[in-house]
């Protein structure tokens, strides 16, 4: 579906955000869309992008120029059209009675949490935002409490965002709920934390995707219940269900 781009700008640092026309079709935080880069057959496949907001007839995505597809995307201008399919996948579904909502975000993995917070303005959320360096923390989210970690120590704590999470007092609480999106290593660490601390959690997995709607089987995730597809059975999976491979 071709949609008109209304705004397309750099967020400073490594990320760019793109807003395009989109009706409020009930898309939920954690879901994603598939973006077609060009009408050419190279690059051929669509690219999955988390929904970073949906408000007033505009959908936002926030992306990192990672390779050829996203660099071509960065060349598009406001006024031009972008071809987007979706929304696809499962969403974050924090339990109504959770005592604390802890959001663990790595780099551009913060994008869905912007949407989550916008849709849950009245629920208190604590953000834990990690990246390699300052540049990787470019998504600003109106969390009620925010903690940062950088591998180079340029912002707040030097180290892993999961270390900051572990130090948080809310972790003592079994009714807390953790949600995470970011690199695999981080997700795995969060998963192990959830299991160890017996805290409920949701993990958004970014697998390579061919289609985004469940038919190519390119995005298999091994779970206790067998192969699942990251695009329709995920991207948001319950913590404690994934069989991690090295």
């Amino acid at each position, binding site marked *: 579906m071709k949609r008109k781009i209304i705004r397309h700008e750099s967020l400073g640092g490594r990320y760019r955000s793109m807003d395009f026309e989109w009706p409020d079709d009930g898309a939920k935080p954690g879901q994603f869309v598939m973006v077609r880069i060009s009408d050419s*057959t190279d690059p051929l496949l669509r690219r999955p992008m988390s929904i970073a907001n949906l408000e007033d007839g505009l959908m936002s995505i926030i992306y990192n120029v990672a390779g050829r597809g996203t660099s071509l995307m960065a060349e598009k201008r406001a006024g031009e059209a972008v071809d987007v*399919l979706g929304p696809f996948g499962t969403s974050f579904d924090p339990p109504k009675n959770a005592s604390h909502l802890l959001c663990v975000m790595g780099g551009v993995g913060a994008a869905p949490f912007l949407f989550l917070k916008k849709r849950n303005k009245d629920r208190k959320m604590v953000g834990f935002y990690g990246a390699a360096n300052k540049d990787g923390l470019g998504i600003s989210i109106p969390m009620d409490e925010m903690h940062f970690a950088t591998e180079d120590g340029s912002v707040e704590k030097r180290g892993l965002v999961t270390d900051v999470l572990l130090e948080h007092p809310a972790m003592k609480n079994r009714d807390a709920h953790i949600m995470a999106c970011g690199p695999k290593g981080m997700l795995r660490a969060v998963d192990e934390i959830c299991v160890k601390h017996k805290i409920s959690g949701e993990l958004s997995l970014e697998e390579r995707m*061919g289609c985004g*709607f469940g*038919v190519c089987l*390119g995005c298999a995730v091994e779970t206790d219940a067998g192969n699942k597809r990251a695009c329709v059975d995920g991207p948001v999976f319950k913590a404690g269900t994934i069989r991690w491979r090295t």
Partner: protein
Amino acid sequence: MANMKVRIGSLELANPVIAASGTFGYGVEFADKLDLRKIGAFATKGLSLKKRAGNPMPRICETPSGMINSIGLENVGLDAFESEKLPLIRKTGARVVANFFGETQGEYVAAAARLDAMDGVHALEMNVSCPNVEKGGIEFGSDPVLLEKLTASVRKAVRKPLIVKLSPNVADVRPLAMAVQNGGADAISAINTLKGMSINVRTREPKIRRVFGGLSGPAIRPVAVRMVYECATTVKIPIIGLGGITTVEDALEFLIAGATAVQVGTMNFVEPSICERLADELSKWCDAEGIADVNDLVGSLKLG
């Protein structure tokens, strides 16, 4: 309005556009993306007697105008297909080509016989790009003798139209097309994916966990059109052409080269409604060009 109906053995299709196996799930995933009655048919993900989990990840990667996949023939198995998928598929009114495979001739025959008995399966497509575990892993589709025997024994076991899908990883496709015809199949589909490989140079690992995978998409179209032409000029049974179709012109290339119908694979991922669009555009193209019957295009290549 031009006639769009084409015939594959005893099966009549409303038009020549079929969605290719492995790119259209079990059809039901597309029920909200296009009108399944408006396309010729769809081919299911390759089915085997037993459910299969497939290969480890990563299973896909992108290449110039193409992609490599090594799904490893993951599928729900015939039981679940019959009990869970087929009832839903039947409701859509779609024409269904059941794609299937085995690791031994016996498995092929058994799977084919079961599918032949299933209500709502209109034709069988046999994927022969699989290693024969009884013959040291040589692919069924690479040896004419093996292939003719396999085709003949499956033929005996089924009454529905039998399509054999050829592998392009051969020196010469013509003896294999002959073998399929001699074995008694109703049609040939060509081509399956080309064996390919790609490497992540940063990690120095193959981009596909199992190292090799199947190359599909527009990149392979020239190879596919050539093989369809070679098949069509070798055998009398109808050919279903596929490999890299993205536009109505691409589909026309295959028809003109000698295909009676076409399949669209990888592009279903990029544009889920493409089969319906191409069926529609093909009909309009015929009308605009004054072609009364799409079958008149088949094999209409002009040699200088």
